[in-house]
């Protein structure tokens, strides 16, 4: 279990009394710098391609469509990844991405039709589309982008389709068949920006003053005693990647992530759906990163610095008593960088 107090509450930027320096700036100066910084980052995203983000040599795990869903789950956990591109051997084509939302769909299907246990047990990746149809959930459009298109375009495509990752697809020069080159996530793009774009230091505006990061969200929460299946329904219904766990006073104490679903049904066991969130969270790996929080006075410069240092997928905005106020997701940040502050 993670103690929120010990988790990464955005650290103050290092240097010679930086807060003095920042407080010496007028609001106009900060506004001006913020605009310049955002513009520079935008230019950076336009000038670099998805290919640039890739290391010189890297690994890519691909799954075949006739693989059983439960085995795919083991492969994901074994390789410590949360998603993988799916490849159709028969057509030699890219067949979409397998991600935690697929497992959420399977769980919901099983919950709805508990008599179809055999079907769920023998379900292949091919069959996931049928499950989606039976549940009536929105089919996630399979988007992709060429690796030599700019990062900016990749971000736009991701935001439009509300997906957190985008596969990079090219065509073989000789056979003209698709090649899955890699998959980029919002986190990797933002980390790339945080590492290689020094203009992130200019983003000194407190996030409470940034309009597009403060849109009121209909935040669903759960308590430690909520049945985990209810939380899974919430994840699916709101198409979000996590549900914050709060106590009676509204204090943030933990978070249930879509990724945690993978460990819940590990080994193809769908019988633990009546657990409470608290019990389900006990299955989480020892090296869980923790819950990242920030306050309205924090700045994007420190948030980007945290992204550079640790793997985070969202920040919960809390008040001084660590009561949950709002959430800032990576999409929110990307959306602001791409379209905000004009």
């Amino acid at each position, binding site marked *: 279990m993670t103690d929120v107090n010990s988790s990464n509450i955005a650290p103050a930027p290092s240097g010679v009394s930086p807060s003095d320096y920042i407080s010496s700036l007028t609001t106009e100066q900060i506004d001006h710098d913020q605009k310049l910084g955002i513009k520079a980052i935008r230019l950076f995203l336009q000038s670099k391609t998805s*290919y*640039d*983000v*890739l*290391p*010189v*040599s*890297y*690994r*890519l*795990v*691909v*799954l*075949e469509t*006739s*693989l*059983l869903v439960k*085995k*795919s789950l*083991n*492969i994901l956990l*074994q*390789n*410590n*990844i949360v998603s993988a591109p799916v*490849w159709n*051997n028969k057509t030699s084509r890219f067949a979409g991405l397998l991600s935690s939302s697929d497992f959420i769909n399977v769980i919901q299907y099983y919950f709805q039709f508990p008599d179809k246990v055999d079907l769920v047990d023998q379900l292949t990746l091919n069959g996931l589309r049928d499950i989606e149809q039976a549940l009536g959930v929105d089919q996630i459009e399979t988007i992709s982008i060429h*690796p030599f298109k700019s990062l900016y375009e990749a971000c736009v495509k991701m935001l439009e389709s509300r997906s957190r990752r985008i596969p990079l697809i*090219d065509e073989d020069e000789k056979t003209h068949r698709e*090649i*899955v*080159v*890699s998959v980029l996530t919002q*986190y*990797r793009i933002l*980390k*790339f920006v945080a*590492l*290689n774009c020094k203009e992130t230091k200019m983003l000194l505006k407190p996030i409470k003053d940034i309009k597009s990061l403060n849109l009121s969200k209909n935040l669903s929460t759960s308590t430690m005693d909520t049945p985990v299946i209810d939380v899974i329904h919430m994840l699916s219904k709101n198409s979000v990647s996590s549900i914050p766990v709060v106590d009676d006073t509204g204090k943030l104490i933990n978070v249930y992530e879509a990724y945690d679903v993978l460990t819940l049904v590990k080994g193809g066991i769908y019988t633990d759906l009546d657990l409470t969130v608290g019990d389900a969270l006990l299955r989480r790996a020892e*090296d869980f*990163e923790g819950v990242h929080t920030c306050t309205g006075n924090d700045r994007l410069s420190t948030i980007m610095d945290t992204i*550079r240092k640790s*793997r985070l997928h969202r920040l919960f905005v809390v008040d001084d008593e660590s009561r949950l106020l709002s959430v800032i997701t990576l999409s929110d940040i990307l959306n602001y960088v791409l379209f905000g502050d004009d």
Partner: protein
Amino acid sequence: MSNSSAPGESKDISMVDVSNALPDVSSGDNQSQDTFTAPPIRRKSTLILTDEDHMKLEEPLTNTSNTDADTMHIDRSQTNLNQGPAQSSPPPASSQSQQSPPPPPAQATAEADLTVTVPVEIKWSQGGEKVYVTGSFTGWRKMIGLARQPDNNFLITLGLPVGTHRFRFVIDNELRFSDYLPTATDQMGNFVNYVEVTPENVQSYLDQQAHADLSDEDKSELESQLTDEETSVGDVQPPTSLSRKSSISRSATRSDSMWGLTNDDDDMGNGYSRYHDEDIDANLHKTYQFINDIPPIFVDPKVMEQYYMAIEKQSKAQNGQQAWLHPPQLPPHLENVILNNFNSMDRDNNSGALPIPNHVVLNHLATTSIKHNTLSVASIVRYKRKYVTQVLYAPLQQ
């Protein structure tokens, strides 16, 4: 997987002419008895993705009688030149590398002499006053100043050993990268420029040096080739025109391949050269007939058994080993499986970054043993200037 079994143990049935299998085998054995006294030590012949760590790098040979085997890994043209001896030498080479202590887990380039450096020009043409370069070649500590050129560009020529060198520029105290050089993110996610010095670069540079020493007349001409070489570093182009020509002329004097099927040179591309066997070369002018029937040895259990019995007798008479029971040996380069170096629990490495593969392992298929009815295969391919190691999981056919 390519075949590298030496004549003494070429019991891979596909390599043997079935119609006269027994004479062939015995002649092969006779030949090997002349060449070898001790049987080679067997090694695993499957590439393993996980569980085990087979990260043995090739050590430079210390066995003086077979120095050709060493150069074979470095330059294709050399391979052609030394075709005969190189072919008979793999067993000593492999046993040698097995006895040697495991080398440090450095870049997969230990075949070449790391003390040899190739001049590499590093150029900055994006302005600035004070231009420095810093990189993996100085441990990222020292900065090396670049000299301003008449055209306002900055230039430095560094002597770099084989390997991939990452670097960045420091322009007026600001860390930058060049838009005109290859770029990539390293394992930490930093965006850097990089240059790749391959064993071919070193060898062709050494060749040119040797030629330059030979004649003063050609010096000016060779110097122009040297600069050619300098600019082509980072590419994985074949050696420069000089060594290429020599390779063709050498192979032209050579006789045809063992089956007498081809008239092209021995260079198969991708660093491979055609397999030659000295005693089979003698049968060169024999004409072979193509047939559509599957030879009985593959379909008739009786013939198969007879064949195996015969080979077993031969090998028992030779050294008591049942050589044919074992699969052929794996070329030593392929033992370096970069996926075995991958720690999937490393949270900092969220881009799945792997070490740079040695080019000889490209386009090979690696696999694990089949577990839970799931087959996983992997292969490393080039994508533009980067390497993708794709691992595909597929179920066995049901």
